[in-house]
């Protein structure tokens, strides 16, 4: 439960007239066709829609992995579309955390090392890195599994490692792209409890793409995409 009304704070993420086209001429595909969206700090927002609706494209642009063809994207007042590749890499490194459907952990690398990775790119000292990574693993309930490799962990545990990796840098935003897509129902709900905790306790803004209604129900706001545009944007009382 949020202790504040998100609508009263200036937006952390602000999309205006966002368009993203792929291809040229007749083969041109309008993945996003004029999207306006404000996300306030501390929100937990679920992005839904059929495949091809543009929800993943929107997620990639918010995550600074992709650039819009037209329109503006401001992150905390900074125009992201004007940033260089390195600038966007720094933004990802310092403010964003990613969780993917396919976990995307480095194989044959221990959980601790996987979680340490974003800190390595920050140039943090080894001892400090290990301390913070162990802390993050503890926060997701994986204490004692530090030296396990992804192959030795269950799907649910792997996704927890991925979450630990995403939050070890204390990001402002957690971007989750169908985080429960590869998990069974029980594991999915356990994971969502963890994500909800991160949102409420740590105040991390969560943006989650999903196509499951019961997963989306954890979010305080539900945005539905269709044909590259926002079809509905509903705030639900938690």
């Amino acid at each position, binding site marked *: 439960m949020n202790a504040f009304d998100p609508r009263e704070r200036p937006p952390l993420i602000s999309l205006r007239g966002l368009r993203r086209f792929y291809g040229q001429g007749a083969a041109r595909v309008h993945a996003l066709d004029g999207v306006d969206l404000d996300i306030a700090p501390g929100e937990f927002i679920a992005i839904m829609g059929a495949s091809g609706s543009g929800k993943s494209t929107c997620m990639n642009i918010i995550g600074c992995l992709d650039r819009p063809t037209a329109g503006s994207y401001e992150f905390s007042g900074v125009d992201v579309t004007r940033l260089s590749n390195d600038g966007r890499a720094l933004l990802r490194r310092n403010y964003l955390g*990613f969780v993917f459907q396919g976990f995307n952990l480095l194989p044959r690398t221990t959980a601790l090392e996987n979680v340490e990775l*974003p800190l390595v790119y920050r140039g943090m000292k080894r001892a400090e890195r290990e301390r913070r990574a162990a802390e993050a693993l503890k926060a997701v309930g994986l204490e004692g599994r530090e030296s396990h490799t992804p192959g030795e962990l269950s799907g649910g545990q792997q996704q927890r490692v991925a979450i630990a990796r995403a939050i070890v840098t204390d990001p402002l935003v957690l971007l989750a792209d169908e985080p429960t897509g590869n998990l069974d129902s029980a594991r999915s709900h356990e994971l969502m409890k963890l994500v909800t905790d991160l949102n409420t306790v740590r105040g991390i803004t969560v943006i989650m793409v999903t196509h499951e209604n019961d997963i989306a129900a954890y979010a305080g706001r539900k945005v539905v995409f269709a044909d590259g545009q926002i079809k509905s944007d509903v705030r639900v009382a938690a």
Partner: protein
Amino acid sequence: MIWESVKLALRTIRRNVLRSILTLLGIVIGVAAVIALVTIGEGAQSKMTSELSKLGSNMLIARPGAPTSGPPTGGESRSFSERDVDALRNGLTGVRAMAASSSKQVKVIYGTASQDTQVTGTEPSFFDTQDWAFTSGGTFSESDARSGTAVCVIGATLVRELFQGENPLGGIIRVGAMPCEVTGTLAAKGQSAFGTDQDNTVVMPLRTYQRRIAGSTRIATIAVSGINQEVLPALQSAMAEILRETRRIDPGEEDDFTVRDMTQIAAAMSSTTSVMTGLLGAVAAVSLLVGGIGIMNIMLVSVAERTREIGIRLAIGARANQVLLQFLVEAIVLCLIGGLIGLALGYGLAALGALLLGIPMGFNVTMAAVAVVFSAVIGVVFGFFPARSAARLDPIEALRHE
């Protein structure tokens, strides 16, 4: 960051041990070949240089036999006579020392020990022409030389083999059938360029040798040592002129003797060796290039295989340059490992070769450093293209890659 990259590279290399070894092989063989060939070549050359100094300085050697009839045999051709030697002695200027000599293989006995030895009959000045020092005693006198006394000077090998710790001075050895008193011992010279032991020798007055050992007055060699390098060409032609006159060779007729500048021969041999070393080194360098292409190939495969990993790294905040660095460091580490193994292998082979060929082996620090640096450069050159293609990957595409 670099240290992290090195650790990561080492881990990746360990994970694909077989593939890494196969990739390294090209570099290993290339570096080993270059090191081994150049080291052996340098050894051969330094041996050549030391031979050169052993020959005696600024020495011209006249031997019977025409220059065109191959190496002088001294056997069938008309040998030199005392008249030839006297004519040279009186007619030449710029001579530091001059000695006529003849040699023969003879058994030498002292007590119960015996040894087949090169016995040379010559003049007292022989030791000057050869720059040969004495460790004890001295040369036989001019009067001994004239009267043909049974005295001799022996080489270091004979001192060791025959006298075995006894003082050889004043000892009587038997040279063939002739008892002979030792008046001096010579400093060790080691092996000659042809592999014979130069210290296994007995030197006695020419007359003694002619009368008591050879039984003929033939002179096989006339050695002339010039006062310096510059006089040698003039000295060489003057010798030829005088010898043609005393030996009554008509103008237009070929010489029946040869005058050689030993320094020139040795220098020519030495430069041939260095050309060979350079050529072989160049061939070996080509294999290094091939090894580098192997590295590039494997790095490209590695980038393709790890596309997803690169996507993950980019998503969690790696900059393109950091990905570039990672793959570049991996290529460099791979090449450096190959270079170091090659270095060890190369020196191992060189040591073996030096042992078999009987040449000295030097450890050339500069070359070792160059080989290692060059390996790293190969890593940079051939690792850069694959690393750049990794750094340029689109993170979304990379993450989707299966």
